[in-house]
């Protein structure tokens, strides 16, 4: 899907830095990528790699003291092309929930506990689509039904605490797709859920992607979830994109030594009892003071002198790029 169609989102040289008392944290540092219509794209990486801040930058919801200090975020929709970086708060309010929907890890903290589910679902419909109460109510029931909530009409009057974790995440998805957005950003949508409930939610997100054509941007640390859901993968490390490829390429022919390390450290399900894992040595760098050149070089098994220079994202094959001077030859 992603090769023929046009991009809905183009991020160019995005830098989001946090101005803390101890110094400047380069949380997102010169990140460029595109997302195509209806595609499912994963952004993966470990804690602190900048994946969530990248997503929050797209929504312009960066927490204090973070700021976008450079870059462009172009959103192409039927109403034209806008650079989100240049939009005012007022203009962003029209885009959030309308053009871009977002769901978070912990649905309880993103739902308002003192308002009914119905109220919270109808609000964006009335606001963005100028529906009347009656229309919004009908649409809200339809949305709940679509995300698989039984007895939708009665449950409109319930409060978030009356729903289970999996059901709350379904409500969040219903809210996020209420205005038929171009992109659904899902930030660790199943991390807080049990594995049998996770399977239900992943199935639902896949259905929304395929049936409604919503582009899905999945932010996660779990490569298993990525393999289930996504067509293309962006791997981030220490605030930068280090590899970008279609899903088969990432798993079967990874080029960057960090991606390889990540794949090797995962316990594989299967009867390999007590087989030794191959962990990466060391820890991710402190983004107050990242290493010069390639940020992965202090932990990299293939490091050479040239790695003191920052490697750009270089083509490694069709639609496959990696930021490494000495990429793996035959995959891992």
């Amino acid at each position, binding site marked *: 899907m992603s090769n023929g169609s046009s991009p809905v989102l183009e991020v160019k040289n995005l830098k989001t830095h946090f101005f803390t008392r101890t110094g400047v944290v380069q949380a997102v540092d010169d990140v460029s990528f595109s997302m195509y219509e209806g595609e499912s794209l994963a952004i993966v990486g470990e804690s602190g790699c900048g994946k969530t801040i990248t997503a929050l930058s797209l929504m312009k919801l960066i927490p204090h003291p973070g700021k976008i200090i450079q870059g462009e975020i172009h959103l192409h929709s039927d109403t034209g092309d806008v650079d989100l970086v240049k939009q005012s708060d007022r203009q962003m309010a029209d885009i959030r929930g309308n053009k871009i929907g977002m769901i978070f890890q912990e649905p309880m903290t993103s739902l308002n506990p003192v308002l009914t589910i119905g109220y919270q679902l109808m609000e964006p419909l009335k606001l963005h689509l100028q529906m009347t109460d009656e229309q919004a109510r009908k649409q809200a029931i339809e949305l709940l039904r679509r995300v698989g909530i039984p007895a939708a009409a009665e449950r409109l009057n319930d409060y978030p605490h009356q729903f289970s974790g999996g059901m709350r995440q379904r409500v969040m998805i219903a809210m996020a797709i209420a205005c038929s957005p171009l992109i659904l950003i899902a930030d660790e949508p199943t991390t807080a859920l049990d594995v049998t409930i996770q399977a239900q939610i992943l199935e639902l997100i896949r259905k929304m992607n395929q049936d409604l054509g919503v582009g899905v941007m999945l932010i996660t640390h779990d490569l*298993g979830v990525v393999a289930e859901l996504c067509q293309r993968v962006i791997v981030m490390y220490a605030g930068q994109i280090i590899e970008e490829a279609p899903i088969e390429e990432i798993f079967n022919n990874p080029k960057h030594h960090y991606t390889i390390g990540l794949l090797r450290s995962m316990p594989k*399900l299967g009867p390999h009892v007590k087989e030794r*894992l191959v962990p990466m040595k060391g820890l991710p760098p402190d983004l107050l003071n990242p290493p010069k050149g390639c940020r992965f070089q202090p932990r990299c098994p293939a490091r050479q002198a040239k790695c003191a220079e920052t490697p750009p994202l270089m083509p490694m094959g069709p639609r496959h790029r990696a930021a490494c001077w000495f990429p793996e030859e035959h995959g891992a």
Partner: protein
Amino acid sequence: MSTNGTADGTLLAVKNLKKHFKIGGGLFKNRAGQVLKAVDGVTFDIKRGETFGLVGESGCGKTTLGQTIVRLYEPTSGQIIFDGTDISELREEKLRPLRRGMQMIFQDPGSSLDPRMTVGDIIGEPLDVFRVGSKDEQKQRIEELLRIVGLNAYFVNRYPHEFSGGQRQRIGIARSLALNPKLIVCDEAVSALDVSIQAQVLNLLNDLQEQFGLTYLFVAHNLAVVAHVSDRIGVMYLGKMVELGSTPQIYDHPLHPYTKALLSAIPIPQVGVKKKVERIILTGDVPSPINPPSGCPFHPRCPIATQRCSVDPPLFEQKESGHWAACHYAS
């Protein structure tokens, strides 16, 4: 207090263990008298030097079971035979010396390490509590423990907040090793860690087991991690053990429909590899353990349940050598 021999190499035997919590009362008078059956009749044993994995979803009672075994909770009924002694009813003063033999590692090392104690004090606390060795000997032991878990000995005077999550978990492990325990209960010990750090800690646990002949009860929700570290696995659902077997038995030939669904629900980080089993997506949520379903607790979500399952609770039976399951239709 019965004292059994331990010639068969069993370190821990748990027999029909129950832990029920009375809830309600006070502000919640309308719920007074209700009972939450967190652990409801669990039987299994762990051999010396073995890793026994305990899996299940939130609320299945796996953590309560682990904590009842080390007597952080009073068992409601049943027996816990540790190293030949029934400890289920032992009083504090008799229990204390046995406690040295069993330790715990918790999920979140951020909250299980006292932020106002130095690393040396944290690791040395068990030595202090049991008055092991002189001050000098203790200091040496602390430095030795730090080296064993792969940390620098000069970290003794630092505080927990100065360490990363993986390093803090190593501190927790060093503390658990201080008294040379026989059994360590690892409760979601690597769940909070990033995958590259998780691999380091799993390898460390493995090395320590070989080096010191440790026995682990490894409690976790992640079946891939549990299958990786365990010799045998027990699967829990709503306070009961529904299946128990060797890791290859559970993985290659699961008997209980819940285990099958759990295995099939795990996202596999591979593409182009055909899944071993058809994905079974269970409907609905885990029911409340306050008012569990009648008959087999899994029947409302079970794809193969029949009328019989809603009335007749299945027995936990041995279906093949060393492979137990609680299901009328286990196959």
